[in-house]
């Protein structure tokens, strides 16, 4: 191809045309902070790990009183032990993946490692949502299996609300809560993937189609 040969010839001549940065100029750059994708992913992932844990810690103790009344304390205690074991597992995986990111790897491998790191934290968020859903199913099942106790706890003043109505109110409020969480997460991930990882995903797909 003529044009490409011409370009190659020109390419070799251009060395002299570039600005020569002085020692001081390079020194200044070296001391600046990186704003690479990996750094942002690290910050966001850490924030997510903290966010989900803080949410658990922020729940006031009074919230648990109701569970005590409903005889659900044991179930919750077990679920907390499992939960923290899983959290530690996720944190370990995240650090393992993050530490494996190496800028000197081939482009393909580097992108794979970044995506893997990001995916670990995605799974963590999925885990939190799924665990919440499962736990609320268990709790609901146990709650509603003893209607008398349920009425006692949620309707202590003995207002004239039927069991069906109370059931519906509880169910609807839980569904609304879930929908809001999922919507919020969807928007959030659109932002993360839209802004931060769009370019990386596109380039990764391009290489993947070659294989």
């Amino acid at each position, binding site marked *: *191809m003529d*044009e*490409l040969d*011409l*370009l*190659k010839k*020109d*390419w070799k001549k*251009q*060395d002299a*045309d*570039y*600005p*020569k*940065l*002085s*020692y001081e100029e*390079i*020194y200044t*750059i*070296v001391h*600046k*902070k*990186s*704003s*690479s*994708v*990996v750094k*942002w992913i690290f910050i966001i992932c850490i924030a997510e790990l903290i966010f989900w844990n803080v949410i658990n810690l922020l729940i006031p103790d009074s919230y648990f009183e109701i569970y005590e009344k409903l005889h659900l304390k044991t179930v919750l205690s077990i679920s907390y032990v499992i939960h923290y074991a899983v959290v530690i597992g996720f944190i370990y995986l995240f650090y393992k993946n993050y530490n494996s990111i*190496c*800028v*000197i*790897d*081939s*482009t*393909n*491998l*580097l*992108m794979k490692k*970044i995506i893997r790191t990001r995916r670990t934290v995605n799974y963590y968020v999925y885990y939190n949502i799924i665990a919440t859903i499962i736990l609320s199913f268990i709790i609901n099942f146990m709650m509603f299996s003893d209607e008398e106790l349920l009425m006692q706890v949620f309707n202590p003043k003995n207002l004239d609300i039927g069991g069906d109505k109370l059931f519906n109110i509880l169910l609807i409020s839980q569904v609304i809560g879930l929908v809001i969480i999922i919507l919020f997460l969807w928007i959030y991930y659109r932002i993360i993937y839209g*802004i*931060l990882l769009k*370019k*990386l995903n*596109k*380039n990764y797909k*391009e*290489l993947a189609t*070659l*294989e």
Partner: protein
Amino acid sequence: MTKELEHKFISEFQENQNIIHKVCRIYTNNQEAHNDLFQEITIQLWKAYPKFRGDSKLSTWMYRIGLNTAITLYRKSKRTIKTQDFDTVLHRIQSTSYDDTEEEQLKLMYKAIHQLSDIDKALIFLYLEDKNYKEISETIGISEVNARVKMNRIKTRLKTILNP
């Protein structure tokens, strides 16, 4: 020790900085974006420098980090202004004795390269730097056969852009 390492790095980098300017030349089309990417690559090189053992050539190491930063780590600055083309070619050619057609062809060539995907740009860059297919395939992380296939496709694509 760190000061010593820093001094060594800056001195070596200063001598080889053209490699990074060339990466920026392929991936950006205005001065501001060029400087921005140059800066990010330099930071990445410095961060990776303590692990540089010298078992590969410094230039090879710089190619890798330069391209990886441009393709993967660097997020395009929002300030990129497309209309203000960074036309070093045109600027340069005026002072050199090229004939008009060559000058025009080169200008179109650079414009065409800027339309390619990030991966294609990396292949063209390594091709212009006289790297063989083995080195190209190792840098990008694809097989040699795929590198060849891809290179041929890029050549065809450049041809289509230039002669629509």
